[in-house]
């Protein structure tokens, strides 16, 4: 990383916490009803990175999840597929086996979730994920280095991981819950984009708070401004803590009004989530039939 980048990061405008949170709160009062709600729910389903990141994951568990991602609502063929299935590297082959080329397969890597491993081990982790068939890699940044002010290390590692990804898309997890301040989140967003991130992602889901509306709004401002500055579009993925359709729609409103409609596409915006999908399906059924069903009418995988 060059000195100019550090200087550039220092010149980013500050974030006023009160104002940012007020803007997020104001946008979340948008009332999305009827046809627009239907459209938003289908879009949200198509943006889900259906995720399982447990020590107890097994081939059987991830196969079931992959099947669900392909056909989230087995009773309704018009229901869109999820965007991707997101698992640990050793589970990638079992997902690929089920989804073939029909869905993206995302793998966390780089000693997820803490990222506390030597670089060569992180890179081997990435290489293993890609070799196993992942076409998207969700890496974590070295938050320790970031908080210690060693931005160069953070930058170099992202560059190295990007290289190890080859043609696989790189999502860079900032772990905003550990960066704590909005100024840090903005700086880390630009750092990651400059280092080659295809997506910037809020959280691992292992740290609280995970995704929040204001932090996602801030990252959407960052990708918007980065495209204005460089011409390159970067995606955003909030992950962790988004559980209801109502929440998902608030995020889509923020995408629409902050970054713009170019980002209203699974190529540019994703939800990292597990339980969200079922709530979206329940709401979708409600919109189509006019009746609320119950948890037994969506599949548990």
């Amino acid at each position, binding site marked *: 990383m060059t000195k100019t980048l550090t200087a550039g990061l220092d010149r980013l*405008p*500050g*974030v*006023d916490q*009160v*104002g*940012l949170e*007020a*803007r997020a709160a104001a946008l979340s*009062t*948008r*009332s*999305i*009803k*009827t*046809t*627009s*709600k239907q*459209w*938003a729910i289908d879009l949200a389903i198509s943006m889900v990175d259906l995720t399982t990141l447990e020590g107890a994951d097994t081939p059987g568990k991830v196969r079931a999840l992959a099947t669900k991602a392909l056909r989230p609502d087995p009773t309704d063929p018009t229901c869109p597929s999820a965007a991707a299935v997101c698992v640990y590297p050793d589970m990638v082959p079992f997902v690929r086996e089920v989804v073939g080329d029909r869905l993206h397969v995302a793998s966390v890597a780089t000693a997820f979730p803490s990222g506390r491993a030597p670089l060569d081990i992180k890179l081997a982790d990435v290489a293993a994920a890609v070799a196993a068939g992942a076409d998207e890699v969700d890496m974590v940044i070295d938050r320790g280095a970031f908080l210690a002010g060693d931005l160069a290390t953070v930058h170099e590692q992202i560059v190295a991981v990007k290289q190890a990804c080859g043609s696989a898309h790189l999502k860079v997890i900032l772990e905003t819950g550990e960066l704590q301040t909005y100024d840090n989140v903005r700086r880390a967003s630009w750092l990651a984009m400059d280092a080659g991130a295809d997506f910037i992602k809020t959280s691992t889901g292992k740290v609280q708070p995970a995704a929040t509306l204001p932090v996602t709004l801030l990252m959407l*401002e960052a990708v918007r401004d980065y495209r204005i500055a460089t011409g390159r579009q970067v995606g955003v993925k909030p992950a962790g803590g988004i559980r209801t359709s109502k929440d998902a729609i608030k995020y*889509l*409103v923020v995408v*629409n*009004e902050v970054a713009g*409609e170019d980002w*209203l596409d699974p190529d540019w915006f994703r939800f990292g989530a597990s339980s969200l999908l079922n709530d979206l399906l329940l709401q979708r059924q409600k919109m189509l039939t006019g009746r609320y069903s119950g948890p037994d009418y969506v599949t548990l995988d």
Partner: protein
Amino acid sequence: MPKFEYAPAPESRSIVDLAASYGLFIDGEFTDGGGTAFKTVNPATEEVLAEVAEADQADVDRAVRAARKAYQRVWGPMPGRERAKYLFRIARILAERSREFAVLETLDNGKPIKESRDVDVPLVSQWFFYHAGWADKLEHAGLGPNPQPLGVGAQIIPWNFPLLMLAWKVAPALAAGNTVVLKPAETTPLTALLFADVCRQAELPAGVVNIVTGAGETGRHLVSHPDVDKVAFTGSTPVGREIARTIAGTDKRLTLELGGKAANIVFEDAPMDQAIEGIVRGIFFNQGHVCCAGSRLLVQESVAEEVLDRLKARMATLRLGDPLDKNTDVGAINSAEQLGRIRDLAATGDDEGAARWSAPCELPERGYWYAPTIFTGVTQAHRIAREEIFGPVLSVLTFRTPAEAIEKANNTPYGLSAGVWTEKGSRILAMADKLRAGVVWANTFNQFDPASPFGGYKESGYGREGGRHGLASYLEGTR
């Protein structure tokens, strides 16, 4: 066509029970008026909402006498702790009926339901709660051991925040032990008349609050009535001057809250995205019908281009249209007359060589509408930099140094409010110290709180409303 089209999400107007005609509220009763009844319309559709009585001189006299009687017999002698009960009750009823008030305010005024629901009506209730708390603590207001009410207050309020301005006037007056005769603006009388119903629901003694509707003539009768002890006016500077002349030489007390031409000052180190929001909130909130609107944007020249690009992009996302739709950001201009004034003054901006840019939004065919607009290349010499437009029109000026920003910000006959946007705390304090404006907002704009005094310098008026200082406008010290 946009990808994400928001389907209409209108708030239901069935919660409001509109009568075909409304009388005056005098001495606890609705009565006919002696003047010529007038119609109030929904500015978004030009639909007539109701017919409203006009109070003539005799009606005003009846109202003042009712207020005097209530002051002498009931409200003045009543212990503060008892008055507080009524005010708390009013505050609670307002909160309980908030949806009804919000819909009615939006119908009569044209402001978006989002604002009447989330800003106006909640603040109204807060204003009564806050002042209810003062009613039994007046000896701690710093005005001496036993401050006394003034008597009968004549209160004249504008059409931009009809119910909120009522609360700003009525709550402190009543808390301090005064009784009032209030005249709402002729284009927005309906929420005041619904407030009369709240007074009855709260069993407020008859004559404590009287509401007389009408236009300028009714206002003149009220201001010049010999038995009025205090006049409180919010509105335009020309009318404020006329009122001051009328009561000159009498012992009536006067507070005036008049026009403004506030500078919203953006430094190069501002939190940029939030500053853009603050500019938008500063001038497009309530269609710019805000006396403290940030109608002059002073932006540091080094970031002017960037700020304007971002501002235009943000303005393009503003949703203008049906005020009752929950997703509407910008509603209707309150009246044909006001729309004419905005058009005329904006036209001088074109004539004097400023560059106009308007948000690309479609204006409805019926009703009174004006697209959010900015003028760039404006200097201190342009009329649009000096005169209050009172509409969604922003004049953009640049500055080079903090000293120049102060000089330009203060170089106006007005002095109601100002805004400063910078990440540097010391600069905020230095600017606030030198800005000649009653309210200075730092990294925010158009924020209101009942505990905070509000009022102007110079031609923006005198006296303060809100907080302990506002209370003093309704009390006689005994020191």
